[in-house]
C-alpha cells in the first residue's frame, strides 16, 4: 500500500501482474515512461482510470496500478466516454492500437474526438495487428505482405493524425516509443489539455513489423527524417549544415533548402503555432509524409474549446439552478392528474 501523504513514484504505478509482451516490444518503453509521468501529475493514484480495447497494446491497463478496464475490441473510447461523462473528477486514459483504434474502433475514435471529451488517448501505432499475429492494419503501407495479404496489401493507409484533425481534434501529437523525454513531455501536455488529447506513439513491433519507424527512432537518422515541432519556432529540420524548412503556401507544403545562416522566416518557412485556430494548419503538417518530407514529431495542435463532460455537467448544474433539484413527487404528479376518492 502506498502512503498517500508521501510522494508517489513510478513504482507505485506498476501492478503486480507479469508483463506479457514479446522481448524488445516498444510497448515496454511506453509503459515505463507512463509510469514515470503519472506521479508528477498531482493526481491521487485512485483517480486514474486506464481503459483499453483488445490488442497487445491494449493489455496496458493490467500493468498499471490504477483503476483499469480492458474492454472489447475497438470500443475503449466509448467506455471512457461513459466514465468521464459520469465522473468528470477522474483522469481517464485510453490505450489503443492502430487496429483497435482505427480499424474496428474508428467510429468511436471519431466521435470521441469530435465531442472533445476530456480524456487522453494513446494510440500505439506499430502498423500491424500484433495480437492476432501479424495481419496488416489500417496504417500499414500499400504493398505490405502479411499472412492476410500474401500478394501485398492494397488499402491506402490512414494517417491517424490527419484522421483526427478531420474529426475536429483539439489536441494531436506524435511521439516515439523509445524517446523517453519526448514521450514524457507529450504525456504531460496531453494531460494538461482540456478536451480529447490524442497522441500517436510510433511503436516498434519486433516480431511482426520490425524497424517500421527506425528512421525516426534512430537518433542519427532522425535529424533528417523528423521535424521536431516546437511552439513559436520555425518548421526546421536537418543537420546544421543542411538546414531545411517547411513552407505552406497556397495550401501546399514544400521543402525550402536554407543557406547557412539564412533567416528561415524570410525564406518563407512557417512558424509553428499550436494554437492556430483553423485545423487547416495542423492538417498541413499531418500531410507531411516520408520520404518527400520529414515526419513531424511533437504537438501539432492544442486549441481550447468547451469539453463534452464540462458542458454536460453544466447542463445538469444549470437545470438544478433553474428548476431546483429534481423532486420525484413533482415528476410523478406533473401534467394532468385526477383523484379517485374512496367509493
Amino acid at each position: 500500500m502506498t502512503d498517500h501523504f508521501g510522494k508517489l513514484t513510478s513504482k507505485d504505478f506498476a501492478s503486480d501482474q507479469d508483463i506479457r509482451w514479446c522481448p524488445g516490444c516498444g510497448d515496454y518503453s511506453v509503459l515505463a515512461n507512463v509510469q514515470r509521468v503519472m506521479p508528477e501529475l498531482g493526481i491521487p493514484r485512485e483517480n486514474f482510470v486506464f481503459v483499453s480495447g483488445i490488442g497487445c497494446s491494449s493489455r496496458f491497463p493490467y500493468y498499471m496500478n490504477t483503476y483499469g478496464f480492458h474492454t472489447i475490441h475497438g470500443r475503449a473510447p466509448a467506455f471512457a466516454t461513459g466514465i468521464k461523462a459520469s465522473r468528470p473528477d477522474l483522469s481517464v486514459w485510453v490505450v489503443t492500437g492502430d487496429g483497435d483504434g482505427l480499424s474496428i474502433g474508428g467510429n468511436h475514435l471519431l466521435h470521441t474526438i469530435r465531442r472533445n471529451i476530456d480524456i487522453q488517448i494513446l494510440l500505439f501505432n506499430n502498423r500491424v495487428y500484433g495480437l492476432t499475429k501479424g495481419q496488416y492494419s489500417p496504417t500499414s503501407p500499400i504493398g505490405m505482405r502479411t499472412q492476410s495479404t500474401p500478394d501485398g496489401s492494397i488499402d491506402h493507409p490512414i494517417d491517424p493524425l490527419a484522421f483526427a484533425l478531420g474529426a475536429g481534434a483539439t489536441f494531436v501529437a506524435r511521439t516515439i516509443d523509445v524517446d523517453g523525454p519526448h514521450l514524457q513531455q507529450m504525456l504531460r501536455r496531453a494531460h494538461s489539455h482540456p478536451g480529447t488529447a490524442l497522441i500517436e506513439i510510433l511503436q516498434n513491433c519486433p516480431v511482426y513489423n520490425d524497424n517500421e519507424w527506425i528512421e525516426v527512432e534512430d537518433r542519427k537518422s532522425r535529424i533528417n527524417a523528423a521535424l521536431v515541432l516546437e511552439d513559436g519556432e520555425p518548421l526546421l529540420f536537418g543537420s546544421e549544415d543542411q538546414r531545411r524548412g517547411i513552407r505552406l503556401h497556397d495550401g501546399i507544403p514544400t521543402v525550402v533548402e536554407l543557406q547557412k545562416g539564412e533567416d528561415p522566416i524570410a525564406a518563407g518557412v512557417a512558424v509553428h503555432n499550436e494554437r492556430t485556430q483553423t485545423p487547416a494548419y495542423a492538417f498541413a503538417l499531418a500531410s507531411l509524409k516520408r520520404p518527400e518530407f520529414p515526419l513531424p514529431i511533437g504537438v501539432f495542435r492544442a486549441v481550447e474549446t468547451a469539453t463534452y463532460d464540462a458542458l454536460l455537467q453544466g447542463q445538469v448544474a444549470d437545470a438544478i439552478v433553474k428548476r431546483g433539484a429534481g423532486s420525484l413527487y413533482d415528476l410523478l404528479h406533473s401534467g394532468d392528474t385526477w383523484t379517485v376518492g374512496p367509493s
Partner: protein
Amino acid sequence: MNAMSGKVPAKAVRQIEGVAIRFTGDSGDGMQLTGTKFTEATALAGNELATLPDYPAEIRAPAGTLAGVSGFQIHFSSKSVRTPADHPDVLVAFNPAALRANIDDVRPGGMVIVNSNSFTDKSLKRAGYAEDPRPSLRDRYAMVEIPLTRLNREVLKDLDISMRDADRCKNFFALGLMYWLYHRPMEPTERWLENRFKGDLLEANLRVLRAGHAFGETTELLPVSYIVPKAKIQPGVYRNVTGNTALAWGIVAAGALMQKDVFLGAYPITPASDVLHEVARHRHFGVKTFQAEDEISAISAAIGASFAGVLSVTTTSGPGFVLKQEALGLAVMAELPLVVIDIQRAGPSTGMPTKIEQADLLLALYGRNSDSPMPVIAPLSPGDCFYTVLEAFEWAVKYMTPVVVLSNGHLANSSEPWRIPDIETLSRPRITHWTDAKTFQPYARNPETLARPWAIPGTPGLEHRIGGLAKEQTTGNVSYDPENNEQMIRLRAEKVARIAVDIPPIEIDGPESGELLVVGWGGTFGAITSAVEAARVDGKPVSSIQLRHLNPFPTNLEQILRRFDKILVPELNQGQLVRLLRSEFLVPAIGMNKVRGQPFLIEELRARIDELLSEETSP
C-alpha cells in the same frame, strides 16, 4: 358534468357498461391529440380505460392516402378494462382513407361517424375506393354522416384566421360532439386550450369544441346519448402514462430513490427513442443522457459509467439490441450493474419498425457468444414499466449483473390510467461501495447473493483491473486455468439463478389446477387475462398466469405447470417462451403464435381456449 349544467338534455340518455371508440384521420388531422384529450376527460369521468394509438410508418405520408392514416382507440367502461378492445364500437373517420383502413375492424352494427364533406372524387381515389363506399356501409353499420368541414367553417367564418387554420380545428368539433355523446366533462380540454393557445386560435378552438357539443344536442343524426357509470377504482391520484414515459420515469426514479446519479446511453431507434427524449428532460435529477454514435457506443458508455459508479442504463429496440450483445457479454464477465431496455418491435431485420411483436426473448437469453446468463424481466402493462425498471436496477446493483427489460412497441405507445405510487412505499435500496483496502478482492463474493463488490474509481487502495478475459476467482486476475474457468462460469450462472429468491411466487388467475392453463409473458397481459376471465365467466375451466420474470423463473412456476392438463402459451412470436418451458420442465406446452405486427385479439385467444377445451385430452 358541469359542461351540461343548466341544460337538461332533450334527448334520450342510455346507460351502457362501456364502449370502444376509434378516432381516425389523416396524420395531419390531429387524431393523437383528439384521442389524448378524450382519454383525459374519460379518466376524470371515473372510468377504467385503455388506449391504443396507431401512427403511420412514414413521417409524412401523402395526405389522404392509406399510408397516412393515423388512429387512436380508447376503450372505457364501468367495469375492469385491460385492453383497448378487439373491435371498436364506434369509428370516427375524418376521410375516406381512414374509413377504408379501419372499417373492417368495427364491430358489426357499430356506429360509424364520417365527415361527409371529405367524400370527394379525388379523396375517394386517393383512398383507393373505386366508388363511394357509404351506400353499401349503411346496411351494415349505424352510419352518422356529418358535414364536418362545412359546419366547422361556418362556426369560424367571422374569425380572422386562415382557411387552413380553420380546417385544422375540426377535430375539436368532433371531440365536442363525442363529449356530448358520452357525457364527458369539457373543462379539462378547455383549460388545456387556454394554456396552449391565445387570441383567435384559442377562440377558434374553444368555439368549435363547444359547437360540436351543441351540435350533438340538437342534431337528429344522434337521437341518443350514453352514460358510462364510474368504475370501482382503487382510490388514489391517477394520471395517464404510456409505457415509454413510465420507463423513463422509472429510470429517473431509480436515481432519486437510490440517491445516485444516473447515466443513460442511447442511440435513437423506433419505438425506443421517446425514452431518451423523456429522460433528457430531467437533468435536474442529476440524470445525464448521452446520444451515442451507435448502439455499441451507447452500451459501452453505459458500462463505463457503471464501472465509474453511477446507475447506468441503455435503451434500444430489436436491431439495436442485437448490436449491444457483444458489450453485454463483457458486462456479464465484468459483473457490473447495468439495465438494458429493449422495446421489441416487429422483425426480423428492419421488419415493420412501428409494429408490434415480442420476439427478442431468446435473443436476450442467448444472443452472446458462449454461455452468459442474464436476468430478464418483461413489464405487463404501460404503468408496470415503471416498476419493472426499478426492479431491474435493484437486481443489477444487488447482484452486480446486467439486467434486461423487454418492453414492446405496444406498451411503449399505449397508455393507461396509472395510480401514482406513494413515494414512501417504493423500495429504496442502499448502495454500498466497497472501501476497505485491506480486505478488498475484486471478485470476492457476497456469500448470499454471490455478488462481487462494486469498488469504484476514486477509492484509495482499491485500484484494480477488470476486463473480458477469463478471470481468476476472488482476485479477478487473468486466468486460463481450466478448473477456475469452469467454476467462474458456474458461479455466474448460479448468481443469476439465486435471484429467484427475490421473485414473489406467481399468482394464478383462476382455479389453482385444472384442465387448461394459459401462460403468457410481458405485454400480452391484458388480452390474455381478458380472454381467460371471459372464458371463465362462460364456465370454462381455464386459468392463466402472466410471467414478468423470464430469467430466473418464479420458483413456484414448475408446480403450477404440473397442476394442469394442458398448457397454452400465446406469444407474439414463433414460439419462444414455449420452448423454454418445454425444455426446462418437460411439459407438453402448446404454442399459439401470431406475428402480424398486431396485439392479440381477445376473441382469437378465446377461440383457441375453447378449441383446446373441447379437444379430447390425449394421454
